[in-house]
């Protein structure tokens, strides 16, 4: 019984560490330790249930040990901020007033496409509509909308941005599909101080011709170009 107790704690600790190292995106809607418990508990319940040679007590002790671990971690999480951060991490700021935080994005293994996808799911279309974007400790994205400035015009139609540059490289397929000229973007980036395309971390353009781009270690830039390419969408 005590063996099962200790072994369950060890397996739990290792799984928990691995899940924490894998990052928040693997988690879904749970805290890391809740995710680990969910992974383990189904198996623990099934094995003694199906295998008649294993005493049912082995399953019961393992499940009770998980309950103990859950309670201990919940109490630990509430008792101190530091312990709480060790257990559940802290929310990561992905977009702030300077634009996208690429270092954080890279650390979390999130691509621009995934960020855009979550932006759309949240009901936004452009990065510049967002004041802050956070990846919460349960793996969900939170977007805080930018407050419109007085006298700001509404866009003529619902903007639908496409990513045309990611990590200093053109997304050729998008450019080809929508009939965009690279020259137009190169001139635009040059006008805003970019020496080459490699300086651009991300650039999007929407169907109103609004270009959003961000140079390395710089604040983002939004330019209303009205450019629609050869095949407006």
């Amino acid at each position: 019984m005590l063996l099962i107790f200790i072994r369950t704690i060890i397996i739990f600790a290792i799984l928990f560490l691995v899940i924490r190292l894998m990052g928040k995106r693997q988690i879904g809607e749970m805290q890391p330790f809740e995710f680990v418990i969910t992974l383990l508990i189904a198996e623990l319940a099934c094995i003694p249930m199906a295998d008649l040679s294993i005493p049912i007590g082995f399953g019961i002790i393992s499940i009770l040990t998980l309950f103990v671990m859950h309670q201990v971690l919940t109490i630990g999480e509430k008792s101190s901020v530091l312990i709480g951060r060790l257990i559940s991490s802290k929310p990561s700021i992905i977009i702030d007033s300077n634009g996208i935080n690429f270092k954080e994005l890279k650390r979390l293994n999130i691509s621009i496409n995934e960020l855009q996808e979550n932006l759309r799911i949240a009901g936004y279309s452009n990065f510049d509509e967002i004041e802050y974007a956070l990846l919460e400790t349960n793996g969900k994205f939170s977007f805080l909308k930018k407050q419109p400035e007085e006298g700001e015009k509404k866009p003529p139609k619902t903007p639908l941005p496409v990513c045309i540059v990611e990590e200093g490289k053109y997304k050729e397929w998008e450019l080809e599909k929508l009939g965009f000229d690279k020259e137009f973007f190169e001139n635009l980036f040059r006008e805003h101080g970019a020496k080459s395309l490699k300086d651009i971390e991300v650039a999007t353009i929407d169907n109103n011709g609004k270009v959003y781009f961000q140079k390395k270690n710089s604040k983002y830039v939004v330019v209303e170009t009205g450019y629609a390419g050869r095949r407006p969408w």
Partner: protein
Amino acid sequence: MKSTFVLLGVLALILVSGYLEGLYVKSKFGYFEENLAKIIEKTDQKQDDSENLRQLLEWWKGEKLIMHAFVPHNEIKDIDGMMVKAGQFINEGFFVLASAELKKLHDMVKALPENYSFSFGNIF
């Protein structure tokens, strides 16, 4: 507060029942091993101790029902068969074969509580 009490209660239950289980398994298998050693000694001297062996088998059949709760069933399922086989050898006068079977059983009975005891080797 309530959940902390529940937590402490469950933790105490696991630790106390784990400790008692260890003592129980050790004492029962200790008794088994001790009696088996006596039977082996007599068998080695070519004395018929099948009556004690039969009594030990009866005792074990009663204990086995409880032991199933603490030890995986496959580990103890062969014990009855080995005792019956050894008894048969004694009844037919094959003391050497009976002794070999009983010594095998003795080693098994000695190892079982060690395999499930709380130790570093068993944890890993």
